[in-house]
């Protein structure tokens, strides 16, 4: 008797009772859910890990092309053949970047966190210097990647994989940021000409798909410019991506600007500050702070959208993946490649969305 009472008071028991078996319908749903999870996860785990090939197949041979994959030797018996990822790992991460120069890309990857940490965390010691570095980073990064002045030149046509994805994502965001502040301020400007131009620009960009902008940049930019000026494909895509991102970011910042009480601007003006002084010292710091979560959300969107550049013939992560499955030696390993690429995108985007949630929580406690 007493033992059964102590059992019902068990923390885990009552949690299960409240959250899994609160009614008989819930009980059925729980059992069905467990069955569903078991089926899906056992299939997925078997396919990805337990029955999969990594370097060697089930006979212990090293996998050098698709005919060595266990699942091609014994159809229907084995899981994924990850050898395609391992063999082509260099391409996924660096594209066609020369192997002996890959340290330059690694250095840029290594510096990237230092460039971003200043924006992400406001209680960082020496934050000012990190921010300076953030603005220097695109130039340092470009110099390291492209070369010149002592380093061998590696043309952008050799860039690919994660490098192109990160290049477009990070550079697009960093370049779009100042532009979007100007657009957001311009949209709230009292000067009708500036206001109209900003509204038309923002609404136009937001009204058309990114792919049409990429096409336009790809096909029309060479038409607009004098003959000698011939931006390469990556740069054209970067122009489109930056303009696209700036319009979305501008709307996120506008939301922040609108949330600032009018009294702030009036107080600043009554102290004798000019428009630029009050904007820079009073309005923007507050507005940007509350608009960081929506800005991060647009950044997640952009990061995913960089995969569209494969349509105009650039080899981003997905583009390299498609090239990999088209390779006759490794044909028909679609799922391995797509699952791997999904995982890479998921890690970046999920990380960013967690960060955005963390910020939202932090801002909530700040204000109360």
């Amino acid at each position, binding site marked *: 008797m007493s033992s059964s009472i102590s059992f019902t008071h068990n923390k885990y028991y009552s949690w299960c009772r409240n959250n899994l078996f*609160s009614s008989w319908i819930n009980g059925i749903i729980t059992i069905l859910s467990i069955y569903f999870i078991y089926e899906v996860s056992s299939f997925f785990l078997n396919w990805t890990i337990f029955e999969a090939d990594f370097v060697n197949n089930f006979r212990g041979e090293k996998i050098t092309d698709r005919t060595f994959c266990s699942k091609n030797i014994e159809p229907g018996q084995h899981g994924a053949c990850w050898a395609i990822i391992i063999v082509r790992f260099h391409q996924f991460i660096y594209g066609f970047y020369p192997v002996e120069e890959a340290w330059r890309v690694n250095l840029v990857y290594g510096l990237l966190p230092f460039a971003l940490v200043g924006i992400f965390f406001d209680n960082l010691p020496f934050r000012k210097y990190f921010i300076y570095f953030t603005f220097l980073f695109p130039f340092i990064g470009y110099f390291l990647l492209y070369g010149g002045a002592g380093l061998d030149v590696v043309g952008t046509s050799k860039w690919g994989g994660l490098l192109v994805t990160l290049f477009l994502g990070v550079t697009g965001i960093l370049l779009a940021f100042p532009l979007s502040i100007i657009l957001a301020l311009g949209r709230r400007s009292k000067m009708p000409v500036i206001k109209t131009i900003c509204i038309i620009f923002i609404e136009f960009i937001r009204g058309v798909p990114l792919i*049409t902008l990429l096409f336009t940049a790809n096909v029309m930019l060479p*038409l607009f410019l004098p003959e000698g000026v011939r931006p390469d494909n990556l740069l054209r895509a970067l122009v489109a991506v930056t303009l696209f991102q700036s319009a979305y970011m501008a709307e996120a910042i506008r939301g922040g600007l609108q949330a600032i009480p009018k009294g702030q601007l009036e107080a600043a003006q009554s102290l004798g500050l000019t428009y630029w002084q009050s904007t820079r010292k009073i309005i923007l710091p507050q507005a940007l702070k509350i608009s960081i979560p929506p800005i991060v959300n647009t950044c997640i969107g952009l990061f995913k959208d960089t995969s569209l550049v494969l349509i105009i013939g650039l080899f981003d992560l997905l583009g390299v993946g498609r090239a990999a499955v088209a390779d006759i030696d490794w044909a028909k390993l679609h799922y391995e490649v797509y699952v791997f690429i999904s995982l890479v995108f998921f890690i970046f985007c999920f990380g960013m969305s967690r960060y955005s949630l963390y910020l939202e929580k932090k801002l909530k406690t700040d204000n109360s």
Partner: protein
Amino acid sequence: MSNSFLRKLIFDEKIRSLVVQTLIIGIFALIIYLITQQTAYNLEKRGIGTGFGFLNMSAGYDISIRLIPYTSESTHFRAYLVGLINTLMISICGCFLATILGFLVGIIRLSSNWLFRNIAYVYVEFTRNVPVLLQIILYYTILLYLPKIKQALVLFDTFYITNRGIYSPSPIFKDGFSIVAWSFVIAIIFTIFLKKYFKKKQDQTGKQYPIFYVNSALIIFTPIIFYYIMGMPLDFDHPILKGFNFKGGMVVRPEFMGMLLGLSIYTAAFISETVRSGIMAVSKGQREASQALGLKNNLVLRLIVIPQALRVIIPPLTSQYLNLTKNSSLGIAIGYADLVHGFGGISLNQTGKAIEIMSMVMITYLTISLTISLFMNIYNKAVQFKGNA
């Protein structure tokens, strides 16, 4: 004199803003002038004329997915129309499916069952953090691994599932079917009036009427009765395997299915989040108060929670519809013949009229976007809280 003018230029707000704006107009005009000059020069040098004359020329390529007649001899304008209809078709189907799936997942996310709601959570996180283009390509690949035509999966002896598409019987409407269709429309209109009438009566007498059951019966049975009265004016054309392909019937191509799955599964994840936050935004007191009044759980949801949640849901839902429509342009990656793929891709490559074609495509998307936001704004106004005057 000049000193005071300069002073005014800098310190008088009105004059300063006038000067700045004139300057900006000037700079813009100059940039546009330079670009048009350069473009005209470049076009002339490449021997590309301008103008929309090419729209009447024969396109010379085929489009497999089409709702209106189209052959390779049809004009580029016809190709534009086919693409536009395909874009609209995938957008409408996608929005429809995404809304259903999104609402379902959003409600599951609020379930009191911990396991059930976390399955939905995993679905949401995994689909919205992976690019939609990748998902479209992935689902399309899965569809291509369906059995070949010769070994088609047969469902109920009518549907054939193959890697070339899902074949199903197509309806053939005989004389008199229009009467059945009209009876259906009239039944719907009638039920709307009936609902109003019953509501009025309920307001007056306080007595409840089984509106829902009466109306459902009306909508379902009226067309069925007319169908039999008119002597069953509907036939089906069954697909038959002839040689290497099916003849007759309808087919849903894997390109369409892949697009539909990719777009709706991706967008549903976002819609479910807006639905969840919308329902959570309805304060708990509302729910408790209606329960205290003795309303049953489904009535609480239908009469109290959902109408209020819709107010919060509609604006973000609109932007999800817009996103889906814009993402439908990704059909080019798997060969779905939408506006960007056919007209914006192949026609552009054939004629070289980049400026004309891209501006037509962009203006079309802008028009679609503006139309969607217009209609959603009207709907939004209808569901918003109406303050009593």
